[in-house]
């Protein structure tokens, strides 16, 4: 990505982070692929997450705790931390960048209107969930999400994704990833409550916040502080490890799949 484009994207990401905070009118329209009305959840709240990248050390504690909490199948993740090595050609320095990824609980979630049986829906508190009893496993929503936040769970054969750990929120607990975050980088809270930590941090850092792939118009509700603009979109990067292979060139990680 050249510099001009990078700067443009960065500005867009910032603008979009601002735009994401203006609640989208949720009036239902009849047009195809428009957002249907939200249902369930607490209508007084709007959950969101702020990730302070300056505090993330890339330890993957969130990845592991989420995996255990939500019983995700091996090799598929509701949240994962992307780890990048950035080579600075001017100084010759090598730096690292960590980017926790999860469902953005978008305000204009493209995964919702595509679902042919309304199994995927957005709660009034903004959390996007899947009704696994109703889901037919068509994977249409998996295709629709630009963030790879969804997958088909091999165990249930239905769509699976981050739910902000609604089951824990309802019990007054923090999501597993927030609870386990070593650096305290993940902050979850109610945007509608001006006294909440997240609302205060957003007010304070409003101009610096960025969201992922803002040009898609999804209005993500996971905000990043300390974001490097190069990573807002799919970064131009080389994948260093695809899979771990043994000496016989077989993939190793399936060895553990029977655990």
């Amino acid at each position, binding site marked *: 990505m*050249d*510099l001009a484009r990078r700067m443009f994207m960065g500005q867009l990401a910032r603008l979009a982070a601002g735009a994401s905070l203006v609640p989208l009118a949720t009036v239902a329209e*009849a*047009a*195809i*692929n*428009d957002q*249907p009305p939200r249902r369930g959840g607490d209508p007084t709240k709007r959950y969101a997450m702020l990730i302070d990248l300056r505090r993330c050390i890339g330890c993957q504690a969130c990845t592991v705790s989420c995996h255990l909490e939500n019983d995700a199948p091996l*090799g*598929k*993740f509701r949240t*994962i931390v*992307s*780890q*990048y*090595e*950035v*080579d*600075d*050609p001017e100084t010759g320095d090598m730096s690292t960048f960590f980017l926790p990824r999860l469902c953005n609980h978008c305000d204009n979630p*493209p995964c919702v*209107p*595509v*679902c*042919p*049986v*309304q*199994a995927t829906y957005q709660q009034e508190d903004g959390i996007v969930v899947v009704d696994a009893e*109703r*889901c*037919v*496993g*068509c*994977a*249409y929503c*998996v*295709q629709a999400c*630009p*963030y*790879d936040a969804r*997958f*088909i769970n091999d165990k249930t*054969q*239905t769509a699976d994704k981050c739910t902000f750990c609604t089951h824990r929120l309802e019990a007054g607990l923090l999501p597993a990833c927030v609870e386990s975050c070593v650096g305290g980088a993940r902050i979850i809270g109610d945007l509608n409550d001006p006294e909440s930590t997240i609302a205060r941090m957003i007010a304070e850092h409003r101009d610096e916040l960025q969201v*992922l*792939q803002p*040009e*898609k*118009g*999804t209005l993500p509700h996971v905000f990043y502080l300390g974001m490097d603009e*190069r990573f807002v979109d*799919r*970064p*131009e*990067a*080389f*994948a*260093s*490890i*695809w899979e771990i292979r043994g000496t016989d060139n077989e993939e190793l990680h399936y060895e553990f799949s029977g655990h």
Partner: protein
Amino acid sequence: MNSAVIEILAPRYQIAWYPWAVQYFFMIALAYASLWLALPGLLGARRWKATARYALLGAMTTAIVAPIALLADLHQPLRFWHFYAYFTPWSWMSIGSLMLPPFVFAIIALAWLVWREPMLAWRTRDDMTGLIARIATLGGWQTPRFAVVALALFAAVMSFAIAIYTGSEVAILKGRPLWNTQWLLPFFAATGFIGAAGLVLVLNRFTGARDADTDRNMLMVVVAAAVVTALVALAWALEGIFVEDSSVAAAIQSVRHSAEWRSTAIWSLSIGASMTLVSFLLVWRNGARIWGWIIGLVALHLAWMARWNVLMDVQTVQKQTAGYLEYVVGWGSSGWLGVIGTFGLWIALLLVIDMFVPWKQALDGPADAPAEKTDISAKGVPSHG
């Protein structure tokens, strides 16, 4: 200044639509395009009657196999009734689930109306075919002509709905920039016509009659559909030059960094161009009778490959992580077994119909001609005899 970025440990996001999806999009496109090829003959055009016989057989069999492939692509196929219990008018897939049954049933009913006419003569036979003819014709009445015309027109209207929904369903997905273009609709339709004309050419060769008008008609359809496909591709590319962040940008990105994508693009382009050129030469120099069926097989291959490239290969482009998914088609039911299974089912269906239905005599076809024996040839085309 660009700096080198390495993604350490890039997770592999698996594909979510399996080769079943390719089978569905292939079969359903053959179904609606074949129906259109059958229309002139069904409505009375004399030189298209033989074509209509083959095209109707093609439309009917593919329309039956397509929904089965679609069902198999669901991870929870037994929950298909949820589509009807929770109709969702804002979802293209849900709309499609409402369009599909009337389309399929209209084509089946149309074929039944057309085929029961010659079947009436079989009612007096005392073997298995006679028994089936007595049951399947539902009485000795003559098929009213207006019913054929009305049903053909209804099926044609439904086929529009099918073409629009199958294209839009994929084209609206912003999550995959390569799909996110309205040009996908005409692309699917035009390549569908290439495939359907190819199918008719192959059926014409291997079911014995080898009608000369049909060969000519179909080669011209192949040429026309290939030209339309090329224009659609051109329009898409032009849009890419003028509109930023289009699916063209994503396509170039894919081709630039991947040898496989490059060879796919070159392969499709060269096969498509040679097929068009040869078809044109065959019509011009009257070689259709001998070589038409080979063009038919190439056309089927192209129509299928187009869907494989669009639906499968695009899924290997990662959405936000580096690199490509190295997707290897497995042997299980969500891989080659599914592909072969659908084709097997289709051929079995063709054989059963050929055995019990006098479809060749429909639409003023030649009266009970002795069947010509041919071998099963490449791609498992059904033999007759």
